[in-house]
């Protein structure tokens, strides 16, 4: 891999981690309302997959959606502004963390319904097929969503119609509080792909290069018109299901030990420095830039006006 690509991957991962840490602080300060779900620990997946996507390719995301949004090149100012309920936010304060979308970059939205984005990404892929473009759609979802009916119905349709969609299952070990081994009667979730007649690929979701390589092949395949695929990336969710989760379903060792044991950012640094793609100092400079841009984005959000009052019917209906 060339240096620029490697550093881009690292920068995206760093941005995501910083966003999750910073938004947690903002939540603690009472500036973020509702609930937030941290993507920390899974950064390599969004970064590695989205590196292959163009602005006119589509993604659907999840309740744990900040990472996908950032990896799809969202504007951090608009993301923070949304969390803070400002008019300048992506959804003008109407959506919040669980509904951030950026249609200008093909992000069809985070989704508060587990598995809710899977049929939608499939429909986006249908648009590409119908109009004869080489666009692709990627649906990110967790292991929990792989047990929803919408996944099975969509996978079947996509394979039947050879749609350019990649289903990316992020196994973060817990479907909310349910450990993955208690939600699946099989160990290798990627084997489900065989039942739909599409390739199923397992990848180490902590290893950004591995994700990048695996996703690259599957996305190229979809662009060529060879149809859908199922990528299953195994990682570990560093935080609870949501901010404030008491995490009664985890051991002390998992809560305290695993996040240092399974950290894709640490692994990415080791890989980049080990391969001499960049020096520690260069990575530290990226870290500093990321912090600087994040601070600016938060300041922008805090200086923005509160979201405007709901306007009916225009906020709800396009034709009226």
């Amino acid at each position, binding site marked *: 891999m060339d240096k620029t690509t490697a550093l881009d991957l690292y920068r995206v991962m760093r941005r995501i981690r910083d966003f999750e840490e910073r938004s947690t602080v903002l939540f603690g300060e009472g500036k973020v309302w509702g609930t937030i779900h941290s993507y920390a620990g899974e950064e390599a997946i969004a970064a590695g997959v989205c590196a292959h996507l163009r602005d006119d390719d589509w993604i659907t995301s999840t309740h744990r959606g900040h990472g996908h949004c950032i990896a799809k090149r969202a504007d951090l100012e608009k993301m923070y502004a949304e969390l803070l309920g400002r008019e300048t936010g992506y959804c003008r304060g109407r*959506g919040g963390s669980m509904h951030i979308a950026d249609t200008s970059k093909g992000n069809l939205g985070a989704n508060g319904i587990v598995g809710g984005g899977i049929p939608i990404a499939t*429909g986006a892929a249908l648009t590409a097929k119908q109009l004869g473009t080489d666009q692709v759609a990627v649906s990110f979802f967790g292991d929990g969503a792989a047990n929803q009916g919408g996944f099975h119905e*969509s996978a079947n349709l996509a394979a039947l119609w050879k749609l350019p969609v990649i289903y990316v299952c992020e196994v973060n070990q817990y479907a909310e509080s349910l450990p993955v081994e208690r939600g699946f009667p099989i160990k290798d979730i990627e084997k489900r792909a065989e039942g739909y007649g599409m390739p199923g690929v397992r990848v180490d979701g902590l290893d950004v290069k591995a994700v990048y390589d695996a996703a690259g092949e599957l996305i190229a395949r979809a662009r060529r018109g060879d149809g859908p695929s199922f990528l299953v990336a195994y990682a570990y969710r560093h935080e609870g299901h949501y901010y404030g989760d008491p995490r009664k379903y985890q051991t002390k060792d998992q809560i305290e030990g695993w996040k240092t044991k399974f950290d894709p950012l640490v692994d990415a640094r080791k890989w980049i420095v080990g391969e001499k793609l960049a020096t520690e100092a260069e990575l530290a400079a990226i870290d500093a830039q990321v912090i600087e841009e994040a601070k600016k984005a938060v300041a922008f959000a805090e200086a923005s006006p509160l979201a405007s009052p709901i306007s009916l019917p225009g906020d709800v209906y396009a034709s009226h």
Partner: protein
Amino acid sequence: MQATETHAPAATREMFYNEALGDALRLEMERDERVIVLGEDIAEHGGAFQVTAGLLEKFGPTRIRQTPISELGIVGAAVGAALTGLRPVVELMYIDFAGLAMDQLVNQAAQNRFMFGGQARVPMVMRTQGGAGRGNAAQHSKSLEAWFTHIAGLKVVMPSTPADAKGLLTASIRDDDPVIFLEHKLLYRTKGDVPTAEHLVPLGKADVKRAGKDLTIVTWSRQVLFALDAAKQLASEGVEAEVVDLRSLVPLDKDAVLSSVRKTHRVLIVHEAIKRGGFGGEIAALIAEEAFDDLDAPPKRVAGLDTPIPYAQHLEKSVIPQVDDIVRAAKDLVA
């Protein structure tokens, strides 16, 4: 479009309701290549109620896209396609199957525009049919319009005549919001004059199907035909009923309802769906809130019994409003 076509005003042809719907689909598909149809049995079979008959031959299998039996997957694919530039029309065979697809309609399609702060449009139509009267029993006969009217972000359309069916479907396909288009299984073989060229009936415009001065009957879908029959009987007994066909429940033509009530001072609301929680309650509340002083009697409802639809023919008939029920209620109201 064709050089030989005449442009005489109001060129019409007698069509069945299902034929008129197919005509709207054909014209919109010719006009806009982004319009596609998704659904079960819609290709060679022509749809369970023959609405898409002949369209496969004309537009081919990529635009008349027959699907496996996967209601959630199909409706969800339509949502995604609508978000990204197509104008899909989904045919759901029976409204009773909507439960299988409800998340995509209620949490996704209806709310995408709002949740995303106005960034998205979801120009899709979900056509389906409901209603009793064919012995299909409890899982194939419901009238569920009230489910959808309760969801902000959806529009709900229910045509009663072939001409309205064509005009409203055309308008629904061109609308930029998700439209739940509800047909009635016993209307498909009703006939009427339908404009042969492009025909648009705007959403949110009720139609006075019969003028009268003694009471207003507010109704929709198949019960419009029952109300018109009832009005004929009432007229022979000297009672002139005005029949207001809402045509679309969302958006609702409040002015048409209120101005009729202000004229007749009495209102009967008639629908096939069960009375409890039905949309008739919404109409009654609207009138009570905005035209209370114009009323000479409390609003009255004739609606389905609070029961699943039974199978046996005489039982099925006993749980949905009949013409006699409307006549009786109207007489009570004007007495």
